[in-house]
């Protein structure tokens, strides 16, 4: 950017990319589907409606384009000394100021179409939770990189407008962790998922007017089942078992295929670098994402594994932080994936770069009090037994009641493994909590990052002198359960003493 352009920019602001207007228009087309359908359905009722249909479609699409164009002409962003300003709005003008200090993260996302035109969507995340704090869709990739570096430079305290200098900063270094195709494939196998059925179910609900019969009509279903049943009755038992088995195999294959495809879409080319600005992560097959997580914003780390992955020595590492990970939907676990499938050596390397220590072999872990789970099991048993009693006495359904015993056995197993896997430990500056009955997770949090500490006691736990300790972390939760109340208080006091003695005015410049 030369000097005259800089001056002009300060006065009138920067517009978004004009090509981006069309990219946004095309990617927004599916959203027009339902309004269009509604209009067409209305028009189809009158005789002349069919004649007007092409005009209506053209009109709706044209209107959408016009609105987008007006919005585009009214959209400006300004790069100021203290903040980034975004002005937008057709009728009501909106001027937003995002101070550099408050920007938690700048994420750059490239969806397939945008990628073809070398465009990117830039999001300024301030961690206020709503997620739509400041989005620029779309700007040129180079501009996106420049904006991010600008924010980073401001946050580092050295305002630096020179783009060349900044690019040199980002020079490629060997990554700290990568996933090759084989690794992504392995992860895909572990991501076995039957979510496709949920999606199909949702779609069936959306498009049920296209179905040959009402899917909620039980009679129609019975008819279908009866017809198929007649066919089934015509073939022998062995053929039936074979058909059942092949259906099961098809289901399993579908589950694996879904897992592999989803994993490839998200994790392909996964690469984690340690840059002077923090961890830089790039991944994605069609939608490329590129996010930077400053090291000091890591609030805690979670190491996760499942029963089969553990046997093969695979673990996943996630960081807890205020900034939501890009690509995660609302309500989903927003932890920042640092290594989806890694060996313990790789995880140790990333952790030490994140200034978090692995549990050393001298560290003594304590187990939760078994009474905690016994109380829960007794409660579940009482509920299940009374349900059985009702079934036997009122409904006279003995075998259904017996099925409930399976549920009880399941609960017993789950509680047993929860107790077995539960561990906690404290060293001078970190907290370690291990939990989970099927998936094991070990959370490591620096004590200094704890926001608040609460000792909780329910009415039953209180009788046994048990308590849980809830620790507030920015962007996550951490709880130590099944503690003797005296121990809970001791840990609470110890952690608060560590947090309270820090003079935050000294480290706020970070």
């Amino acid at each position: 950017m030369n000097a005259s352009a800089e001056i002009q920019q300060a006065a009138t602001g920067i517009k978004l990319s004009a090509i981006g207007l069309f990219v946004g228009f095309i990617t927004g087309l599916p959203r027009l589907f339902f309004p269009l359908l509604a209009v067409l359905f209305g028009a189809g009722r009158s005789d002349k409606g069919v004649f007007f249909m092409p005009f209506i479609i053209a009109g709706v699409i044209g209107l959408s384009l016009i609105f987008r164009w007006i919005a585009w002409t009214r959209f400006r962003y300004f790069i100021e000394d203290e903040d980034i300003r975004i002005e937008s709005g057709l009728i009501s003008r909106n001027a937003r100021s995002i101070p550099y200090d408050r920007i938690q993260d700048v994420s750059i996302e490239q969806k397939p179409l945008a990628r073809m035109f070398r465009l990117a969507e830039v999001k300024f995340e301030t961690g206020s939770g709503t997620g739509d704090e400041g989005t620029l869709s779309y700007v040129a990739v180079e501009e996106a990189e420049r904006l991010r570096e600008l924010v980073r430079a401001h946050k580092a305290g050295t305002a630096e407008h020179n783009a060349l200098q900044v690019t040199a900063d980002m020079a490629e270094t060997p990554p700290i962790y990568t996933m090759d195709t084989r690794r992504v494939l392995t992860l895909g196998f572990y991501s076995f998922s039957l979510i496709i059925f949920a999606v199909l179910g949702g779609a069936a609900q959306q498009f049920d007017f296209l179905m040959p019969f009402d899917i909620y009509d039980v009679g129609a279903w019975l008819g279908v089942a009866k017809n198929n049943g007649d066919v089934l009755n015509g073939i022998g038992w062995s053929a039936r078992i074979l058909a059942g088995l092949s259906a099961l195999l098809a289901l399993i294959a579908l589950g694996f295929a879904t897992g592999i495809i989803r994993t490839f879409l998200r994790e392909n080319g996964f690469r984690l670098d340690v840059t002077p600005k923090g961890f830089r992560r790039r991944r994605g097959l069609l939608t490329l994402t590129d996010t930077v997580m400053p090291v000091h914003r890591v609030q805690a780390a979670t190491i996760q594994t499942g029963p089969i992955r553990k046997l093969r020595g695979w673990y996943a590492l996630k960081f807890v932080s205020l900034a939501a990970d890009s690509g995660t939907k609302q309500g989903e676990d927003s932890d920042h994936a640092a290594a989806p499938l890694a060996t313990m050596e790789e995880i140790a390397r990333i952790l030490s770069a994140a200034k978090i220590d692995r549990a050393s072999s001298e560290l003594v872990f304590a187990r939760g009090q078994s009474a905690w789970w016994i109380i829960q099991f007794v409660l579940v048993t009482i509920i299940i037994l009374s349900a059985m009693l009702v079934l036997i006495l009122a409904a006279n359904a003995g075998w259904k009641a017996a099925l409930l015993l399976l549920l009880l056995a399941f609960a017993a197993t789950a509680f047993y493994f929860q107790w077995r896997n539960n561990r906690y430990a404290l060293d001078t500056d970190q907290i370690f909590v291990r939990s989970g009955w099927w998936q094991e997770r070990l959370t490591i949090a620096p004590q200094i990052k704890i926001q608040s500490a609460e000792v909780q006691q329910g009415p039953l736990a209180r009788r046994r002198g048990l308590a849980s300790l809830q620790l507030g972390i920015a962007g996550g939760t951490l709880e130590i359960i099944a503690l003797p109340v005296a121990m809970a208080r001791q840990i609470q006091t110890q952690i608060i003493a560590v947090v309270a003695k820090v003079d935050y005015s000294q480290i706020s410049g970070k």
Partner: protein
Amino acid sequence: MTAQTNRLANITPLAHITIMSEIIIDPAPTMALNDDLTPLDPRHITVTRISSAIFMAIFVIGAGVLEVAQIISRGAFIIPVALLALYYAWVVPARKYARWGYAVGADRLRVVRGYLFYSDTIVPFGRIQHIDVEQGPLQRPYGLATLQVHTAGNHNSTVSLPGLAHADALAMREAIRAHIRQAAL
């Protein structure tokens, strides 16, 4: 460099961590309520009684409608509901009040509460993001207020301390604000 190799040497898979045997502690009947806690303003009982009464009135009215409709035998519904409402609106607020307590330390705020479910929360001043003093419509005639401190944590992002004299709440807010420094997240 040596620090790094040390760390790598200390890697322990999740399974092979030392386990301490369970700590056996006599089951203490209650969480010890420490001596240094300040109780809430006694007028808080009255305010809670009024708000509980308003809440329970909905159920009593509902039961009254059923009574008039004479679906079940006379008094079978309204009497237990009314008794429960009386207990909840008269007895529970006093018991809850007895459990409330707070302490403002040099560097932390402690809030203890709970009748069935006890909790004891400590928030270091340095971790407080912002503070609210709220006065509800029922609190206003009695000159009471609620102090709310907000932290960045997902758990306990808001810690509320109701039943403070309005002037006390304002004074506490000023005292805490003086301690707040911008913390790096």
